[in-house]
């Protein structure tokens, strides 16, 4: 356990240094996640008519929270994993007595710290332009939201990592992820809060993993009503399912691995 702790600490510090090397790119990556800000404008305009359950200011807060949650849960491991398989670079990871998932996970984890300042500067800039949207969550709400964002990141990571395992067989696993992303886009609450969905659809969607990646943590952050108990159970359930699926595919996939190009 002590050894694993040392490994995680070292991976975090080294991968943080690695990410900071790309400071210019980091700003662009943060900006590329500003899709929710665009949707915010559209929804705030639409909400002027008063036919939605959220007011324009609530829409603004929701999409700002969505932007923040997305910054902390963005995952690209499938492109890295796919490259490692296709170029045979996974071989170096397999030669070490540490499961390669730790390298991938900790590089994402460290990147969160590197993008943090950029994300907060953007948020501050928005509040400067639109001060009505400023809100201060209470400490309990904030701590709960942070914990759920952490869980959402783990769930999103495991979801994509499980799909990455397909690279052992088809090499372009990212094609599956791109298809999967469609569901993520519509059902996570990224382009519209689930409150505007028909109630039946809302109930069904709440049993899928998608709303827990964006909508659930964002709602907690801005204080929209959520079923906390069901939310946590479903999140943990899906995390467990993806973990089991990933482990099974990993063991099976390693038998297929040919260490191409290496």
């Amino acid at each position, binding site marked *: 356990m002590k050894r694993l702790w040392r490994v995680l600490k070292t991976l975090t510090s080294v991968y943080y240094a690695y990410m900071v090397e790309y400071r210019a790119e980091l700003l662009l990556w943060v900006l590329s996640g500003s899709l929710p800000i665009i949707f915010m404008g559209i929804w705030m305009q639409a909400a002027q008519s008063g036919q939605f359950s959220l007011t324009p200011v609530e829409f603004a807060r929701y999409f700002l929270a969505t932007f923040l949650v997305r910054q902390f849960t963005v995952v690209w491991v499938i492109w890295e994993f796919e490259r490692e398989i296709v170029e045979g670079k996974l071989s170096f990871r397999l030669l070490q007595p540490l499961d390669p998932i730790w390298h991938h996970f900790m590089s994402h984890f460290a990147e969160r710290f590197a993008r943090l300042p950029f994300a907060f500067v953007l948020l501050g800039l928005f509040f400067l332009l639109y001060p009505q949207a400023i809100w201060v969550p209470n400490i309990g709400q904030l701590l709960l939201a942070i914990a759920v964002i952490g869980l959402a990141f783990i769930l999103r990571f495991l979801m994509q990592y499980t799909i990455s395992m397909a690279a052992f067989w088809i090499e372009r696993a990212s094609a599956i992820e791109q298809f999967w992303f469609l569901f993520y886009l519509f059902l996570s609450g990224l382009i519209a809060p689930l409150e505007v969905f028909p109630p039946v659809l809302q109930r069904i969607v709440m049993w899928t993993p998608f709303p827990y990646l964006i909508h659930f943590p964002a709602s907690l952050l801005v204080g929209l009503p959520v079923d906390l108990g069901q939310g946590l159970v479903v999140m943990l359930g899906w995390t467990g399912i993806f973990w089991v699926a990933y482990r099974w595919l990993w063991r099976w996939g390693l038998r297929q691995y040919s*260490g191409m190009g290496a």
Partner: protein
Amino acid sequence: MAAIVAENLSKIYPVAVKEPGLQGTINHFFRRTYRQIKAVQSISFSIEPGEIVGFLGANGAGKTTTLKMLTGLIHPSAGQVRVAGYVPFQRKPAFLQTITLIMGQKQQLIWDLPAMDSLRINAAVYGISDRAFQRQVDELSEMLGLQGKLVQPVRKLSLGERMKAELLAALVHQPQVLFLDEPTLGLDVNAQVSVREFLREYNQRHGATVLLTSHYMADITALCQRVLVIHQGELIYDGSLDGLVDRFAPCRQITVELSRAYAPDTLRTYGDVETVDDRFVKFLVPQEKLTQVVARLLADLDVQDLSVTDPPIEEVIGRVLQAGVVA
């Protein structure tokens, strides 16, 4: 107990076959056919602790596939393999702690960071204490002449320095069994010599077992007493290097630069003409006739430059195959 034992080790890969042209592409899309490639066929050998063994074969002969099976990266299709008493593909931590694989054409160091950062990761992963890590890095960087280079970003290092840093990263946990796949690939002569010297010294200091593939004959001759030769997946020679060279390739390569081009018939009277590129000619001549042929070349032709080298390893292997060992 032998450090490496392989018994009837085989690997068969399915490879998709595609005919050329549009029709072939369409067929490939709708009905993909596969061919079974026998990359390694029932090879057996045993290597004792502390031995340095050269592993030779033409490109595609099955060397790298064998190394991947020995290091546990891929599963054998058939046969048994034991390295340091472990079954490699089970990838037990104690096994991984004992071995290393260095691939000349691949790098494990993080490109944009100093090598020291990658080394710190390795130290943590292999559970090396800070003090032991510092001692190991000091010792290895002195042996490799890398002092002061480990704090520069890897991308700023020369190819030779990078390869040495790769060696350091691969050896920081003091492995007992080293698998080296073209460790001097692309290095200049000086860097090749220092890598070889380092490997010899490491082997002597730590009593490590080394299995080495290289296309540079000099790597093999400098380090290996014994070689294994693999051809089309089959082991065709296991014995001393002297025996291999004496038996199958007692030749030297003469490269000459002439003042003008000569007729091929004229050139052929001096020995086997390997290549002719206008005024530049490469001959392959038997060792015992070397002096005589060099003297004749200098006397008969207008030679501007002449050098004598070992024939390329591919040439030696080619001769081994020509000599009918396979048949």
